[in-house]
Structures are given as structure tokens and as C-alpha cells.
């Protein structure tokens, strides 16, 4: 393995230091460091963060390799500063058996650009009827700890209760896509003034909030952990605040797009803005930002959802929901709450806490002597303009095209080896 000396990096925005990286770990931190044969990485003025961890990534493999593969999604992740991603289970076939999660895990190892931690489905085929073999996935080489039917809600309350209870045996967590399906039949966008004007079937906030309210009570009742995916409404924030105040073991994520964009974007009828849960109002956006800063919402997760061109270049109603997120997440977070969170807060929301929820012990750790060298170097002064064609994802469905954003990932190290240098993927 090559030895690296990272010169002049500011860990979490602190004083400039050198980092000596050898054998996959941070061997030493100091000033004026050097080592024979070491490759020097000029990081003068760059901020060093623990490698980012995404709890909610759709890699599309197996099944929709035309939209994304484990490799292309991993490359996107590395370029976005990530060293670990949790791959959602709604592939084809569904990741509801040990065989499929091990396949995804192995593909991640082969790509070698980011640690890919598969998420297992809660129910067979995401159908919401019968529990998948959760224990077999937990015991597999992929060591699954997060279970989710994301894309679908585990709507049946009895099934949800059982899932929450069952995964306690291996310290698992159920990540719920909170959407009461009876309230969102045919839904296209947030139910409100804009949907009324555009003549689109509404996705009411209460469809999310009612499930979160139910689930936190279930989690309390059975003493289980619950994670809430992509919280999108101000009302959900209030329920989470109440639940946390009661000591219920619930964590929650918010996506970059719900922190920045509103339902007014749908006025273009361009399905690049179609996502589930949908973009909400400016009031919701403000509440989500405040909740993230306050810690009521624990983490930022991308819900990176690549889609082939034909699934987006069509009528809104026919388009698939979802947006790219991995390569833009850090910049969006810096843009909307960077000042309030500071670098330590960003590390907390985008690395340490998601690593803890996922049980990824080698991630979310401060760059310190002896720690695994999973870290990313960010140029805080850089600004860049999003060009869909310039993204490493196989898909192009970014809602941020032509936006100029702050902060640029210059380098990412995974287990002591660079996956990104000079802002480019090394492989």
C-alpha cells in the first residue's frame, strides 16, 4: 500500500495539520510530517471531514443497470465525499434474501470506491404481506442491520410492529418510508395550492405524519429502534420532537432536496422535480432546516435515485419519482445550513450519526492517529456549477442543473487509499 502525506488540511475546520496515512489508517497527525516514498497530497486550506456516510442510496443493481450500477453509483458517492453508502433493497430482484444482499455487497467490494452496505427488505418482494428472512440477511456476509421496504411503506400496523420487534434480536433497525398508501393513491405532488392550480393529484402531508405518529408509538411499545426515511413536512418534525422528548428510540433523515426545493418547481411540469415524498412548501423547508440544525432530524441522507432518460423525459404522471443526490449533497447542505451547523455539525449529520445508525464501526470516525483512514477533503471556498452530463452517475436526473453551489470535494480516502484526487475519481 502507498503511504500518503496530506499536507495542511484543517480537520473539521481547525488548525492546519499534516496527516500521515499508512496501511489503511491515519498513522500520525502533526506538522511538517514526511515519510520515505510517501505520495504528498497538497491539502492547503482544505477541510478534512470523516468520510461521509449515506443511509439511503438507490444503486439500481441488480435490475436497472441502465440507470445505475453499483460501480457508477459508488463513483458518484466517492466524488461526493462518501466512503460508505447503504444500498436500498428495491432492486430487481428485490434484496429480500441473503443471496441478493451478498451479491450487492460483493459488487461493492469489487468496485472498491466506497463501502456498500446493503439494506434488506422488510417484506418479501416489498409486498407488505410477509416478513422477509431478516435473520438470514443479518447473518449473511453482508451483515445487514438496516431493513426497509423503501419505495413502499410497511403500511400494515401489525406487520410493522412485528418487524420492529423481530430485528431487536440482532440490533437491527427498520427504516420506514412513511406513506399511508390509502391517502396517496395516484398522488403526483404535494397536496396544496400548487397542485390545485396544476391539476395534479395531491400527496397530503398527513399521509406521512400519520404513519410516523403510529410508528413511534409502536417503537415505544415494543422498545425497538425506528428510523424514519426522508422526513418532508413540518408536522413530521413536531411528531419527532415529541417522540424524542418521550425517550422513544427514533432517528430521522432529511434529503438535500427537501432542504432546498419547494413544490413551486412542479410548475414547469418537468418530472426531474418529481420525487417521493414530494417537494413541499417553503414553510416545510424552513422547518426541516431548523430541525436538522436542532438535531430533531438526526442526519442528511441523499435518497439518490437514478432514473433512465425515458423515465424522466415524459409526461409528469408517467415519470418515475426520484432525484440524483450523491454528488451534490454536501454542497446543498453547506448552502442551506452550512453556517448554522459548522464543520463539526456537518460531520455529525453526514458521517458520525449515519455510521452509528447503520452500525458501520469503521466509518464516522474523526481523522485521528490510529483511526481508519476514511476521510474526505473539501475546498470550502470553491464554487461549482452542476452540469448533468458531468456527473459520474449513469443517469442525468439532477434537479440542480445549472445551479452554482458552494464547496467542492477535492479528495476522498477509503481505507487509506484515494478514491478521488484533484476532484476526479481515481478509477
Amino acid at each position, binding site marked *: 500500500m502507498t503511504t500518503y502525506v496530506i499536507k495542511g488540511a484543517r480537520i473539521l475546520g481547525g488548525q492546519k495539520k499534516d496527516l500521515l496515512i499508512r496501511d489503511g489508517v491515519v498513522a500520525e497527525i502533526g506538522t511538517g510530517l514526511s515519510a520515505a516514498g510517501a505520495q504528498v497530497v497538497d491539502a492547503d486550506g482544505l477541510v478534512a471531514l470523516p468520510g461521509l456516510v449515506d443511509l439511503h442510496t438507490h444503486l439500481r443493481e441488480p435490475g436497472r443497470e441502465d440507470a445505475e450500477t453499483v460501480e457508477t453509483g459508488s463513483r458518484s458517492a466517492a466524488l461526493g465525499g462518501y466512503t460508505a453508502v447503504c444500498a436500498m433493497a428495491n432492486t430487481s430482484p428485490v434484496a429480500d434474501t441473503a443471496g441478493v444482499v451478498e451479491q450487492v455487497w460483493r459488487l461493492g467490494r469489487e468496485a472498491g470506491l466506497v463501502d456498500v452496505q446493503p439494506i434488506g427488505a422488510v417484506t418479501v418482494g416489498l409486498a407488505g404481506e410477509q416478513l422477509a428472512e431478516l435473520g438470514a440477511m443479518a447473518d449473511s456476509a453482508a451483515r445487514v442491520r438496516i431493513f426497509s421496504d423503501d419505495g413502499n411503506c410497511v403500511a400494515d400496523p401489525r406487520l410493522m410492529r412485528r418487524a420492529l420487534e423481530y430485528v431487536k434480536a440482532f440490533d437491527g433497525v427498520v427504516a420506514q418510508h412513511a406513506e399511508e398508501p390509502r391517502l396517496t393513491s395516484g398522488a403526483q405532488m404535494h397536496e396544496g395550492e*400548487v397542485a390545485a*392550480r396544476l391539476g395534479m393529484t395531491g400527496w397530503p402531508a398527513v399521509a406521512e405524519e400519520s404513519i410516523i405518529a403510529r410508528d413511534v408509538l409502536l417503537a415505544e411499545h415494543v422498545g425497538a429502534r425506528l428510523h424514519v426515511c426522508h422526513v418532508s413536512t413540518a408536522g413530521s418534525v413536531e411528531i419527532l420532537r415529541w417522540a424524542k422528548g418521550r425517550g422513544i428510540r427514533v432517528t430521522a433523515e432529511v434529503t438535500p432536496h427537501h432542504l432546498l426545493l419547494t413544490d413551486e418547481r412542479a410548475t414547469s411540469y*418537468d418530472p426531474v422535480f418529481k420525487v417521493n415524498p414530494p417537494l413541499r412548501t417553503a414553510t416545510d423547508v424552513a422547518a426541516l432546516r431548523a430541525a436538522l440544525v436542532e438535531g430533531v432530524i438526526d442526519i442528511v441522507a441523499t435518497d439518490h435515485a437514478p432514473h433512465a432518460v425515458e423515465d424522466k423525459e415524459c409526461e*409528469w404522471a408517467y415519470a418515475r419519482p426520484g432525484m440524483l443526490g450523491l454528488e451534490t449533497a454536501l454542497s446543498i447542505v453547506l448552502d442551506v445550513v452550512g453556517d448554522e451547523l459548522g464543520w463539526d455539525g456537518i460531520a455529525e449529520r453526514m458521517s458520525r450519526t449515519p455510521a452509528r445508525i447503520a452500525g458501520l464501526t469503521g466509518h464516522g470516525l474523526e481523522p485521528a492517529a490510529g483511526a481508519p483512514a476514511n476521510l474526505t477533503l473539501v475546498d470550502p471556498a470553491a464554487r461549482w456549477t452542476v452540469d448533468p452530463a458531468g456527473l459520474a452517475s449513469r443517469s442525468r436526473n439532477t434537479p440542480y442543473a445549472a445551479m452554482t453551489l458552494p464547496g467542492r470535494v477535492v479528495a476522498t480516502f477509503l481505507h487509506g487509499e484515494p478514491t478521488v484526487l484533484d476532484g476526479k475519481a481515481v478509477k
Partner: protein
Amino acid sequence: MIRHLLSAADLDAGTATMVLDTAAEMAALADREVKKLPTLRGRTVVNLFYEDSTRTRISFEAAAKRLSADVINFSAKGSSVSKGESLKDTALTLQAMGADAVVIRHSASGAPHRLANWIDGTVVNAGDGTHEHPTQALLDAYTMRSRLGRLAGLNVAIVGDVLHSRVARSNVLLLHTLGAKVTLIAPPTLLPVGVDAWPAETSYHLDSVLPDADVVMMLRVQRERMDQAYFPSAREYSRRYGLDVARMRRLPEHAIVMHPGPMNRGMEITPEVADSPRSTIVEQVANGVSVRMAVLYLLLGGKA
């Protein structure tokens, strides 16, 4: 002149009035021996219909032909559209054919907006999902003006399934632009969340609105909405929101009754009302051709 007609909101008061005035000239033409104008000779108008609507398609076709345009009917049945060709690929085909205008009817809200991004020609929205139907609003306004002599200050009651109605959306926008006062009457389940932001009043009670109405426009209500629990039964709907002879008597003497068609006789309107002298339903169809002639003439005329 605007390039596309995607929404009634594309029309300011001056433009909308110009369309109505032009439609009046077109209507006068219909009474002449030779009904055709050479205005759009050599221009191609495509009727791109993804939804069955013989009535609207024939109206646009007649309008284009009376302006001497070449008309191509591109319906979802029996064409590549039904074989799964995407709207974008169809748009590129129409572009290559040199379509000067595409009249599109589609079950998806916003489909005309998408189409307008992909072709150079003019796009006319002939009804998109539950969004808008701007030429219907124009012909309704034309009919009101013909019957009542003005639009400014009129009290217009629009009754029924506002939630799913493209006719209601376009009428609210256009009538507001032209100075009429619109009241939407429906059970609360059939008014959209967010309707408060519309330039219209709302009411749940038809009887209280009728005595002040100059125009009552009855919207089609599909019986299947009952299965989605929008109302308990067709009978209860008719009793509370249907227009029968007894209710019609509550209207002022001069008031007119409109319906965009096709009607559910016995559901939202009784046959006696639909066939009464107050009813403008047949006129609306005739006025549709004149208004669509005016729209095509004005949208395409500037580029001759």
C-alpha cells in the same frame, strides 16, 4: 400575440377580448355562402388526441379546415402512439413533418407544456388531465357574452366536481381576467385543497347561490367518484348539487344554464333543465368552432 395556448392564464384581458371579438367575426362568416377563409392555406395543424373526445376533435378540425389549413388527425388509436411511442418521439415526428400547430388532448396534466418544450410550432391545449381546457373557457365566455351582453360584473356559479375539472380551472382564470365574479359550489370533498388561493368564492350550498347567479355552469360528475368516497351516492349528489326544474326557478329571469358536455342527464342536470330555453348547451358547441378558429387564426396568423 402569445405563441402557445397552454393555460387560460396565458391570456391577459386584452388578448382574451381580442380572441372573443375575432370569434364573433368568424361566427358571422359561418352565415355566409362560402364558409372558408384562405388565411391558413399551406399551414399544417395536427390534432394529437391521446384521449377520446370526438366532440373536441371535430370542433378543432372544423375550425382549422374553415381557415384552409391542412389537418392531420393523429389519434392514439391505430397509430404508433398506441404502440408505446413516447410523447417526445411523437413530438419529434411532428416536428419533422413541419407541423405549424399541434392541438393536443391528453389524460396527463401538463402534457402540452412538455410538448411545447420539444417542438418549434404552436401548441394548443385541448384539455390536459385535470388541469386546463382553455378553449372551452373561451367558448364559455363567448357564449356568456353573446347571451348576456357582457362579462364584467357577471356572477358565475360553477357547480360540481371542481377537483377533477379542467373546465373549472380554465374558467376561473379566464373569467377572473375578464372581470366576472366566480363562485365554485361543490361538496367539500370535490373542492381541491388549496382552492382558497384561486380568484373565486366557494360555497357548499347551491340553493343559496342561485338567486344572485347570472350564469350557472354544471360540471360533469362521474358516478365512479362514489367508489372513492367523494359522496355517498349518486342520488344524494343529485339531491344536493343537481340542477332540476325547482332549483332552476330560483334563478333570476335572465340567467343562463351551461354545461361543457358530455352531460350525465339525471345526475348533475335533469333533462328538463338541459333542454330548457335557458340552456346554452347547443350554442356552446357551435360557438366552439368560432372560438377555435379565432385561436388558430391569432396564434398562427402572426407567423404567415
